[in-house]
């Protein structure tokens, strides 16, 4: 059952390859093939698991999928900006862990009020992103290296600051409600999912409608030409990484809230899951192309696949095999498209 999505992904690619770019409608279709493909794959997976297990297509399980998608999804939303601009951010997973730990420090150790602790943790994420932006723009390091360094720094600092032990939010019992409080009385519809939905809309608007999003696409499309057009590329790259960092902060707070504790480990690997979600959603790792809608669908594909395999009682080990296959197929499609360009 694992090959469902990968096969679909790799067979449709040549169609996009063959479409000529002369006609704008065809060009649009060709450009959107992977996104349409992603939606189709998501539906196919949903249908497949609905038949495979009676427990899959139930309200509580679907909410569970959304819950599972929330943290990685928020990371993916932020990093979509970075990837569209032609960069990469490997520090979002452990950065998220560090932000959760900082929330614990602010609220539990320092006794800040709830709003200040949460805001502080989110802004701390922004600081991590800002530093990434400086390394990339001012020091001129390749994004991969700059954020690989930050990934290790954040991972280490999370352990150092927490003393390698989880921090519990004893003084702020309402902290755990951020993720888990249901917004519909009597039903389980957690606040965390609502925050995810709000961020989806927000980031979609920012990417598609604001100057920040426009410059992200321009820089990813042709950084040199954008700079020669008089755009201060260095400054905008710093802003883009900072935005990504703010999303990391939010994800860190929600992850800690879900567990009612700040865990000093566990974020490692989420960065790759988030990048996978972005790529599966049709955003090119070469930059210049992508959408928030695609990222959302990509996040859901990963979450549904993981959940569906669990519900159908496929052993845990096989779940990562399946996700791995999807990632490879998605990147392969990205490469086919790049070859055509």
């Amino acid at each position: 059952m694992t090959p469902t999505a990968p096969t679909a992904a790799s067979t449709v690619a040549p169609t996009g390859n063959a479409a000529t770019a002369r006609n704008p409608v065809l060009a649009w279709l060709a450009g959107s093939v992977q996104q349409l493909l992603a939606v189709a794959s998501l539906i196919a997976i949903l249908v497949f698991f609905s038949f495979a297990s009676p427990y899959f297509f139930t309200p509580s399980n679907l909410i569970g999928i959304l819950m599972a998608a929330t943290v990685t999804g928020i990371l993916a939303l932020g990093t979509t900006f970075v990837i569209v601009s032609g960069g990469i951010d490997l520090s979002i997973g452990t950065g998220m862990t560090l932000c959760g730990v900082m929330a614990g420090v602010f609220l539990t150790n320092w006794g800040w009020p709830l709003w200040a602790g949460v805001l502080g943790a989110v802004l701390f994420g922004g600081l991590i992103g800002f530093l990434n932006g400086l390394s990339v723009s001012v020091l001129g390091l390749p994004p991969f290296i700059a954020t690989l360094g930050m990934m290790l720094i954040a991972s280490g600092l999370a352990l150092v600051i927490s003393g390698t032990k989880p921090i519990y939010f004893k003084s702020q019992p309402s902290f755990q409600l951020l993720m888990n409080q249901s917004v519909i009385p009597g039903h389980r519809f957690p606040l965390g999912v609502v925050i995810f939905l709000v961020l989806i809309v927000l980031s979609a608007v920012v990417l598609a409608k604001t100057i920040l999003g426009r410059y992200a696409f321009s820089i990813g499309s042709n950084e040199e030409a954008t700079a020669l057009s008089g755009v201060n590329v260095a400054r905008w790259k710093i802003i883009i990484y900072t935005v990504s960092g703010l999303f990391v902060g939010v994800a860190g707070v929600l992850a800690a809230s879900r567990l009612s504790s700040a865990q000093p480990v566990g974020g490692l690997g989420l960065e790759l899951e988030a990048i996978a979600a972005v790529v599966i959603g049709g955003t090119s790792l070469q930059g210049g192309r992508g959408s928030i809608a695609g990222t959302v669908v990509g996040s859901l594909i990963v979450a549904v696949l993981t959940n569906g395999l669990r519900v159908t009682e496929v052993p845990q080990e096989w779940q990562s095999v399946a996700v791995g296959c999807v990632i490879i197929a998605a990147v392969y499609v990205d490469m086919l498209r790049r070859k055509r360009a």
Partner: protein
Amino acid sequence: MNDTVLLRVTGAGKSFPGVRALDDVDLDLRHGEVHAVVGENGAGKSTLMKLLSGIDRPDSGEFLLDGRPYTPSNPRHAQELGISIIHQELNLMADLTVAQNIFIGREPRTAGIVLNDRALNRRTGQLLARLGLPLEPTDLVGDLTVARQQMVEIAKAMSFNARVLIMDEPTAALNDTEVTTLFGLIRQFVTPATGVIYISHRMHELAQISDRITVLRDGHYIDTLDTASASVPQVISLMVGRDVATQQRPPTTTRTGECVLSVRGLGTKALLRDVSFDLHRGEILGFAGLMGAGRTEVARAVVGADRKEAGTITVHGREVAIARPADAAKAGIGYLSEDRKRYGLLLGASVRDNIALASLPMFTNRLGFVADGKIGAAAAGQVSKLRIRTPSAAQLAQNLSGGNQQKAVVAKWLVRDCDILIFDEPTRGIDVGAKEEIYALLDDMAAHGKAIIMISSELPEVLRMSHRIAVMCAGRLTAVLDNADATPEKIMHFATHFGAEGTVTS
């Protein structure tokens, strides 16, 4: 030198899509001869060398090496047949040693798999000793000066027992002492069994090193002269031809608008030395010079795309600090690169977005929202004003023809309202009809008060468009001519003004 022919080329022809790069070109290299090949940019020198060195295949023509047909299938094959080329850009691996570079792909091996470094270094040592080259086999090539790296290339060519050595602008990066050493090596290489084809723009060098000079122009064979009886003006007039001088000139030659851009003492680490010039309102200032003279570098340094080592830039009487293109744009200077696809356009974005790229903040409200409606209106206005042929402003830039892409880049800077525009090879890769439109556009912009710098490698274009012509050579400005005084010969004279000290101010 005797008069028997080592290498004979008759009727060589080669076309690339849209260009007849070589048409019926002859060349004969005698035994023991150093034969110079000269010509302007695009005369066909490089193409001919690519055919000889096996990089490209000729469409027509006969190639005879020692009377036998010579048809190399690739550069390696050409080397085995006895013709080696030393490119202007040296093809060496900086992290490998001298010996590893010379025998790359032919390393002595033990039992077919284990590299035998001792044999490698011994053979290289013998080779270097035979040539009298002051190199060690184990030196890292990256640590050597350019002159010594060139020696490595020469040694490599000799290791193939080359009979014909082609050298493309070998002195471009050498100082005078190094040039003397190189010439010594060339004379040492030339025996009755061998010959050298020597490509250079440096007229005075030809007299020192060459026996005969063949002139190419626009892909055609023009003439072959004995160096001993040829004069520099004679060679230059053969290079540029006579037909150019009578062509169209700008309608009004000198304009006296106020000075809008003043560059003083501009220098870069790599190339530029003390470049100073003024640009006036309503003027087109042409920049002429040979490949690598530093014209593009001037433009890039002025707009802050490359780092300046020295110099000041004054715009409208106020000195401005330009560290990056964003500062230049703020000062009203727009740069249109020679490589539109790489540096000018977002190929995958729409014409509309490309036109808005330089002035996005103008179309953005305080919250950061981009007003797509206003952008569309502005873009549509430019599309019709510049007559950009596209089904709509939403068309992707990559689907436009070269001329229309160029217009889209122009539109980008018109929307930004820059009054100083630097065009780098504005008509490169554009077909003849579209060229006329670009010329008309440039004239029109100048007439409406824009100040324009036009860098061009085509002399007819420079003479036709520019009110004044700045000529560059080896990173220096060697002349600024009024159009009325300018002739192709004069320009070529100053463009080959190597070794002269100092620089001029317009």
